[in-house]
């Protein structure tokens, strides 16, 4: 399956082709959203965060041989907070989620070569965690991932099962021995600087990293402002104080949940603008 990789004529809106692909498949790949200079800056910020996290085992995250996760990555560097409002990604996600968009969780995923992941890793983000919702007709979460390294198809690329976001909530997940053996699975291989995002109800799985390269991706998971943030992802007082625009405050869950105006997109959120 091909991805509608060409940029829209207006990069802040979905093209008709992208919208159709999203509706049918539940995901989109956006090549080159981080140009080289921006990618380099984000890599430096992520590298500093990683070094700090490794030096302090008390910092939250996952530390297992096949996978490392630095939780709440926006807490580590202003540039990583700016990325939550990236001008080529946030407007598109806001378009599919709605104007009440907010963050649910954010992290830095590091997948070294050689780990083994079995087929039970296939899941949706919302089906068992966000109860009471008819997910096949709803869009509750959209997860954006930024590739900081080139990710080959066998390099731990996220696997998705296109179209499953519209399956009934009680649909069984086929049993497979390895994630890559799922019939119809599509690996989201992409170059460094790319982003992809997918509906939280889409069946997906991490892939096995059989390459020689450690996979590094930043994750920004969006939902609605009336949803709680993931445990441990509520903003620290320092991060909350850095949220100086209505959009930043909304993204951090600092505005009224069910009523009140939704924040508008502004150029102020562009990386490096000093908004954070």
């Amino acid at each position, binding site marked *: 399956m091909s991805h509608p990789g060409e940029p829209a004529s207006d990069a802040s809106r979905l093209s008709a082709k992208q919208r159709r692909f999203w509706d049918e498949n539940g995901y989109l790949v956006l090549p080159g959203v981080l140009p080289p200079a921006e990618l380099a800056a984000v890599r430096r910020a992520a590298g500093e965060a990683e070094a700090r996290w490794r030096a302090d085992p008390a910092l939250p995250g996952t530390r297992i041989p096949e996978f490392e996760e630095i939780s709440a990555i926006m807490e580590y560097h202003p540039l990583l907070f700016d990325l939550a409002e990236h001008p080529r990604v946030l407007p598109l996600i806001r378009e599919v989620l709605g104007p009440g968009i907010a963050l649910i969780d954010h992290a830095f995923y590091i997948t070294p070569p050689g780990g083994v992941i079995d087929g039970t890793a296939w899941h949706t983000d919302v089906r068992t*965690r*966000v109860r*009471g919702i008819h997910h096949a*007709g*709803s869009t509750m979460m959209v997860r954006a991932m930024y590739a900081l390294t080139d990710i080959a198809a066998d390099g731990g690329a996220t696997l998705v099962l296109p179209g499953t976001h519209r399956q009934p909530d009680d649909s069984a997940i086929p049993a497979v021995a390895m994630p890559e053996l799922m019939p119809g699975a599509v690996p989201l291989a992409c170059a460094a600087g790319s982003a992809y995002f997918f509906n939280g109800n889409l069946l997906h799985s991490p892939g096995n990293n059989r390459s020689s390269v450690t996979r590094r991706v930043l994750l920004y998971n969006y939902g*609605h402002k009336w*949803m709680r943030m*993931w*445990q441990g992802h509520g903003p620290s007082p320092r991060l909350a104080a850095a949220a100086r625009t209505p959009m930043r405050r909304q993204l951090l869950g600092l505005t009224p949940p*069910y009523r009140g105006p939704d924040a508008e997109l502004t150029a102020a959120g562009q990386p490096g603008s000093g908004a954070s």
Partner: protein
Amino acid sequence: MTDAAPSAEQKLFFAAQGYLVVPGALAAAELAAVHRAAAAAEARWRADPSLPGVRRPDLEQVLGIMEYDPVLFDLIEQPRIFPLVRELLGADVMMLDHDYFMTPPGATIPQGWHFDLDLPGVDHPRSRLMVKVFYVLSDIPPGGGATLVLPGSHRTPGGTKLSNSEVPEDLPGAVPMALPAGSAYLINDRTYHSAGNNRSSVWRRLLIYTYGHKWMRMWDEYRPSPELAARAATPHRRQLLGLTDPYGPPVAWEPA
């Protein structure tokens, strides 16, 4: 009525109509105790204008009523009502807000019909986000400001504008919750409803407990005080107050 799981008829009625009446939810002794607790809360609230709520000629609302008295906190797991709420919402049930509403004689509610929630991204007709429970503390006579509901309206797609009416009672199909003290009634988050005009000579007094799911945000002003949080002695009470992992497994409930 005995403590029991909700009947199939109750669940079917709520699913089809978007509301449910439970006569005699509060037995006489319990109603008396709740009455006393609500009256003490009202007196405290009137004596201290800094306490949160609404103070208007047509409505008074004591916000965060569970903060005022342990009896009003215990009502959160009322044995004739809570099992029904938990069955309708699921094991991840949590409180969203809780109030004491007092509507004086003469109150008028023009154009009062509304949905509580209309949220982009949600397939509302096939989802169930909230169940709102009303406990009737004083008899509500016909014309006494009874809540009006439009049966079946909870299946209306999000974004739909339904007709309103200057006099709430004039909306065709409206059903008034004119009920005796001790009754309870429940509505869905998408059930179109309105307060009625109170043309009677008596105040309408209701306690309202709104339940949702633990992954939903509580209104900021209803976040439990440290004192209330400290009184949540069971894991389930902590879940109801939004003090557990929003996306983790729900805790078990052991009826008292």
